[in-house]
């Protein structure tokens, strides 16, 4: 009896094989668009897809580094500050002025750059006025340094700088500029 089923299956198979299918141009057009899509995918491999993200991350990282470097003292300055900070411990004992006691130990002043601006010059002036009270003589190197820092104000500064105390004291006093408010006129009469 199974023969009948086989005959039926063969009949169907024969009909399918002999049937004709007509090719239409639209079939190929659909195929072509599919191939174009595939080629588009191929042309942008995985690394190229992530390239934009990598570049963006790189840009963010670079700008963060630049910003960090701009806002923080460089390593050389830090090393100097640390070295001087170690000397500060011994220098603090010798400092007699009461204002020096509340100076933070680890604040660093990048005067070299910042004195080019007005508000920094004001701070520098305040600093120098403070210095006048406790320094009798100023070493030549500090003198030259300050000259370099504020050329415009040098005549004024020169008259105020008479101390020749150690570099340590100068640095210690420099530390106050960030944490303290800018003094009003008359405040600096010490």
């Amino acid at each position, binding site marked *: *009896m*199974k023969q*009948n*089923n086989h*005959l*039926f*299956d063969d*009949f*169907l*198979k024969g*009909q*399918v*094989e*002999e*049937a*004709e*299918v007509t*090719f239409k141009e639209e*079939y*190929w057009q*659909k*195929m*072509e668009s*599919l*191939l174009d899509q*595939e*080629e588009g995918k191929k042309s942008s491999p995985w690394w190229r897809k992530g390239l934009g993200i990598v570049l963006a991350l790189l840009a963010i990282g670079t700008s963060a580094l630049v910003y960090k470097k701009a806002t923080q003292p460089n390593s050389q300055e830090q090393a100097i500050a640390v070295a001087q900070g170690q000397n500060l411990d011994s220098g603090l004992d010798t400092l007699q002025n009461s204002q020096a006691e509340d100076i933070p130990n680890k604040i660093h002043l990048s005067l070299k750059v910042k004195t080019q601006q007005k508000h920094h010059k004001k701070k520098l002036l305040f600093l120098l006025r403070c210095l006048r009270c406790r320094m009798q003589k100023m070493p030549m190197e500090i003198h030259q340094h300050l000259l370099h820092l504020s050329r415009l104000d040098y005549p004024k500064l020169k008259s105020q700088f008479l101390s020749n105390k150690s570099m340590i004291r100068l640095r210690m006093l420099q530390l106050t500029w960030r944490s303290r408010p800018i003094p009003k006129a008359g405040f600096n009469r010490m």
Partner: protein
Amino acid sequence: MVFLPKTWHLISEQIIEGCKQNDRKSQRLLYEFCFPIMMKVCKRYTINEDEAVEAMNASFLKILKNLSGLRDLQTLPAWVKQVTVNTSIDFYRSKKKYNERNRFTIDTEYSNVQNTHFNFDFVESKMDSGQIFKLIQELPETTREVLNLFAIDGYSHKEVAEMLDISEEASRWHLHKARKLMAQKLEENHYVLNTSRYETK
């Protein structure tokens, strides 16, 4: 046995190489040569022409991608058909999800059909072009797939069951249903005469 298109002998190594190098003209030639094989398969496994074209193009894409693995040009027609059948089954799987209730119904009905056979008197006349596809497409989805795989493409019930994720009993049930429905349709269209059904126990 794969029915080869008349132009099949024109397929050359040069066209295959062109396809491997993404040459659009070669791809077009291969597409035209493979079209009869692919379309006949896809028309049987899908319900309309749009789906058939979709499945056929997906099949051709697979063929192009895996063309580098082709060793012998003589095996190309059989391989094309195999890829097309597999793609059509994948297409069917993506559309159809079975539920347990449907499977249960099939299993309980199976005992009534396993010894049933049909007797046919065939009319020796060729159907209109595409008519057979229309009749097959009108069958229920799983029934159509089983008929195609078992009766036309020559897979066993075990293979059909694995491919369609159904039991072998369900495959037999669908095949019986497919034959019954097809016989009715063929009789209605005067392609077969005196369809009779008898059961052996």
